[in-house]
């Protein structure tokens, strides 16, 4: 089984180092080109989540998505809308390693980070997070 190891990343110099993965997000129902971001590995998230500004730039209408019963977050319950999206996980050169195909991904207003959660991503991998060495690995 292939194992891919990634260093932690900081968004700015004195940021906390985090397990961020290069991702390419697209809207299969739109001709708009995909958008690159870095996504946080979030073992506490039940599924994947996208920020509103990213999905609107891909042509999704935020409030016209599928609504779940409720979405619990660290700051309480939030309204989320599901939009069909494809998330490609890349290496540092942009080569696609894995693809989450056309899954309905929940979008939360105010979220500032793509989150890769359990149900549609982490459940398929062995994740090893090595904080002492500031790196993490994924084995499919």
């Amino acid at each position, binding site marked *: 089984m292939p194992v891919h190891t990634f260093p932690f990343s900081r968004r700015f110099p004195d940021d906390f180092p985090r397990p961020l993965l290069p991702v390419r997000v697209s809207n299969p129902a739109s001709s708009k080109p995909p958008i690159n971001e870095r996504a946080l590995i979030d073992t506490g998230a039940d599924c994947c989540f996208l920020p509103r500004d990213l999905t609107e730039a891909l042509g999704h209408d935020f409030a016209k998505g599928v609504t779940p019963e409720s979405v619990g977050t660290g700051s309480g319950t939030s309204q989320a809308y599901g939009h069909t999206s494809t998330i490609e996980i890349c290496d540092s050169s942009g080569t696609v390693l894995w693809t989450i195909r056309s899954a309905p991904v929940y979008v939360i207003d105010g979220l500032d980070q793509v989150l890769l959660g359990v149900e549609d991503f982490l459940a398929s991998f062995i994740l090893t997070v090595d904080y002492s060495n500031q*790196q993490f690995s994924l084995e499919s």
Partner: protein
Amino acid sequence: MSTPQVLVTQRKYMGKIVALRSFSDNTVVASGKDYSEVLDRARAKGVESPVMVRVPAKKTVCCY
């Protein structure tokens, strides 16, 4: 031990949305407050697939 990479090294971009040249080149090609405007400006400069980063306004303790 791996050394964490720093995506945005200059503090003048804190609180802004930043477009970087690529996953392997963290050169800032556009920045601003509006996500789509920053994305469009990066593409107008010939960077078709920039990497978008939201830089917090200050050091933030996050709880997702």
